[in-house]
């Protein structure tokens, strides 16, 4: 009895530290959070009244915003999942680990996961809206379903390797199977495309709003029709193209289907307004098991052997099923209910739950202390790469000494200098990169004094402050969510202050040419009192810094 009391007391004491909740400002959160190292990335759509733009925020410990980026404003929701691409290389180039972010404005961009600094950007076709489908990382490249077709792009720089026009689509990612891309569209066409060739299609009727699911050497497609839906299974022929749908595997289901997921080679889960079902493929047809009657209209997710989903309804919670041969539903302790489509996501040893309205809860199923939202990241010891430069300059110095000494001994000091100095020069050139860095650190004036106006609120000190020194006075703003680059912070500050901004493309990236209509001889910027030597688009801005724009 006493032990039970102690354990209960401990649990009550620790629970507030283990669980966390916060609200993402702005429009709906329709996509699952992405956990990257020590941050949780959550995207939100623009509000319908246009008061808040579409955003992607990186949250760290205690829900602090590490960085935030703003997408081009559209009235369409941003529903494409953010994709984390590991570092790699291909004939088109090499790339570091990066995020792929697709916007409903048609913008497709790659950014660094740690600071959100842009690596490349590309525009895709827009017809009413742009990209609503999650991009897919494949061995052949980045597979992007645009509004009007499908593209295979290079991860390194975003260039299009191959592209094909299909039908107009909405939230319809593609699937790559043995070199053939399969993608559905809004008119029920299931397109198949070998990159570099013309696409072909099969008409399934209705609308296809998910990635075709590979199941038992065929494609499972959940077709949305007027008030109901239909599950089809199309075997893949030897040419890799889908054959006509199997009549035995055509299944009528509820309305507004979600995004199915393959569970094993012969089984998949589907969701719709009638609930969630597990389908096992048999030669005679589907063997069905109903898992839930809660409406699921978003993605079903398979993670760590668990099938998860968000129930979509005024009192909708979250669903979780263990796939260990049983179908017992998991229970989430968090009392978070409402409309939503984003499935729970594993974050450390907890579950991250998010609903449409931006309410985020960390459900500490087994403690929850290892999710970045609640813990300080442990310092990562990175082994420095082996630098062979010291070997070069050491050898060059030794050779210089030997050659110079020998020549000086034989023919005099000038000859010694003549034979020794070339090797000294080689040593200096080899040493130069390290020397420059070391030298810059020694400079007493490298760091400028951070400008601070005492009239500014103290609350701005811990964040980013942007000031525009205009001819008729200085305008400043702070306390906004930190932006990853100088340009993005400048745009955010200008919007906040209601100041117009004109930019121009230069070889060094975008440059601000006018602020509030003032051009002068150009605009320059300083970060914490120091003038960087890169353009504002490429300059990472610390989350606590003062950025000043002034006339040149």
């Amino acid at each position, binding site marked *: 009895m006493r032990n039970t009391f102690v354990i209960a007391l401990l649990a009550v004491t620790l629970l507030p530290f283990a669980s966390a909740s916060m609200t993402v400002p702005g429009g709906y959160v329709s996509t699952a959070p992405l956990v990257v190292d020590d941050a949780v990335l959550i995207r939100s759509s623009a509000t319908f009244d246009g008061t808040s733009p579409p955003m992607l925020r990186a949250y760290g410990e205690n829900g602090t915003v590490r960085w935030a980026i703003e997408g081009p404003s559209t009235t369409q929701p941003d529903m494409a999942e953010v994709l984390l691409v590991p570092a790699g290389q291909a004939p088109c180039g090499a790339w570091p680990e990066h995020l792929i972010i697709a916007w409903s404005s048609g913008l497709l961009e790659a950014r660094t996961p740690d600071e959100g600094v842009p690596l490349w950007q590309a525009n895709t076709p827009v017809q009413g809206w742009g990209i609503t489908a999650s991009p897919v990382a494949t061995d052949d490249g980045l597979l992007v379903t645009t509004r009007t077709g499908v593209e295979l792009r290079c991860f390194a720089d975003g260039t299009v390797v191959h592209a094909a026009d299909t039908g107009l689509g909405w939230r319809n990612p593609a699937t790559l199977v043995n070199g053939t891309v399969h993608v559905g569209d809004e008119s029920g066409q299931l397109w198949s495309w070998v990159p570099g060739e013309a696409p072909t299609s099969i008409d399934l009727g209705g609308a296809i709003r998910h990635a075709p699911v590979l199941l038992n050497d065929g494609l499972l497609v959940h077709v949305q029709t007027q008030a109901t839906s239909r599950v089809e299974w199309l075997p893949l022929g030897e040419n890799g193209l889908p054959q006509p749908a199997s009549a035995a595997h055509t299944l009528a289901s509820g309305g507004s289907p979600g995004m199915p997921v393959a569970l094993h080679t012969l089984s998949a889960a589907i969701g719709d307004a009638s609930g969630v079902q597990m389908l096992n493929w048999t030669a005679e047809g589907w063997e069905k098991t109903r898992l839930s009657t809660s409406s699921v209209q978003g993605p079903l997710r398979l993670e760590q052997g668990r099938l998860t989903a968000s129930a979509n309804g005024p009192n909708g919670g979250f669903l979780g099923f263990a796939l260990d041969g049983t179908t017992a539903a998991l229970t989430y302790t968090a009392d978070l209910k409402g409309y939503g489509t984003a499935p729970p996501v594993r974050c450390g040893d907890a579950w991250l739950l998010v609903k449409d309205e931006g309410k985020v809860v960390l459900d500490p199923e087994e403690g929850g202390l290892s999710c970045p939202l609640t813990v300080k990241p442990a310092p990562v010891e990175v082994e420095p790469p082996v630098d062979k430069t010291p070997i070069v300059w050491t050898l060059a110095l030794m050779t210089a000494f030997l050659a110079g000494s020998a020549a000086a001994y034989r023919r005099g000091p000038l000859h010694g200098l003549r034979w020794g100095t070339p090797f000294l020069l080689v040593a200096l050139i080899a040493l130069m990169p390290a020397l420059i860095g070391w030298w810059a650190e020694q400079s007493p004036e490298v760091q400028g004094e951070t400008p601070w106006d005492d009239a500014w609120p103290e609350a701005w000190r811990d964040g980013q402050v942007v000031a525009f020194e205009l001819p008729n006075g200085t305008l400043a703003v702070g306390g906004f969510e930190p932006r990853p680059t100088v340009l993005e912070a400048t745009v955010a500050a200008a919007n906040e202050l209601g100041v117009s901004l004109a930019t121009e493309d230069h070889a060094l990236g975008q440059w601000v040419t006018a602020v509030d209509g003032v051009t002068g001889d150009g*605009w*320059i910027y300083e970060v914490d009192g120091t003038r960087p030597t890169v353009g504002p688009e490429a300059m990472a801005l610390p989350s606590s810094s003062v950025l000043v724009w002034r006339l040149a």
Partner: protein
Amino acid sequence: MFASVGVHGPVLSPTAALLFDVVLLGAATVLLLQDKRMTRHQGVLLLSFVAVVAVLRVLMANLPNVQPVTVAVLLAGASLGARRGMAFAILVTMLSNTVLGDGYWTLFQAAGWAAIAVVGSRARLIEDDRLLLGRATLFAGLLAFPFGLITNLSLIGGGTGFAHLPALVWAGLPFDLSHALGNVVIMLWTGALMLRMLLPVDVPDAMATPGVESDVHLV
């Protein structure tokens, strides 16, 4: 006239760039024409040497601040005199910068090298048509630093004031060191050869030879 992007001093507008080039070219022409001692042969030789040194500078551009021009200009000043040395400096700078990048800094590089040519003309580096190698090497090494200072002045403007100059000079010292060491190496290995290319040989200038005009009879 200036449009600033705040990276490399003021950026010249096309008109300003043209104006600067015209001024520099005009200065070089005036300096050459003022020198009455120069024969056509020497003029052709000088221009050929301009081309050779400009190509050398372009080829060595990847080595951090290793500048064959400095040694060439120093020797040009020492062997041809201040005026031709300065003209040589301006022409090499302009020609090589057509490949390496022309801009506001061309003016300062040309000024820096022209100053070195003047120093060369007064430093008594040649005795009886022979290069005093030790003295020339010392000058070549030391002159890298004032040259670095002059070129740093090109970064002033476009929002960078004179208050930033100490920081700019400090940041540029490793490059000045590389420049100095490069000068020493180039002078020690090619100084004598360069001087031979620059010193006038005994080829009479036909038009300058007395009596040539009277031998020409137009019928």
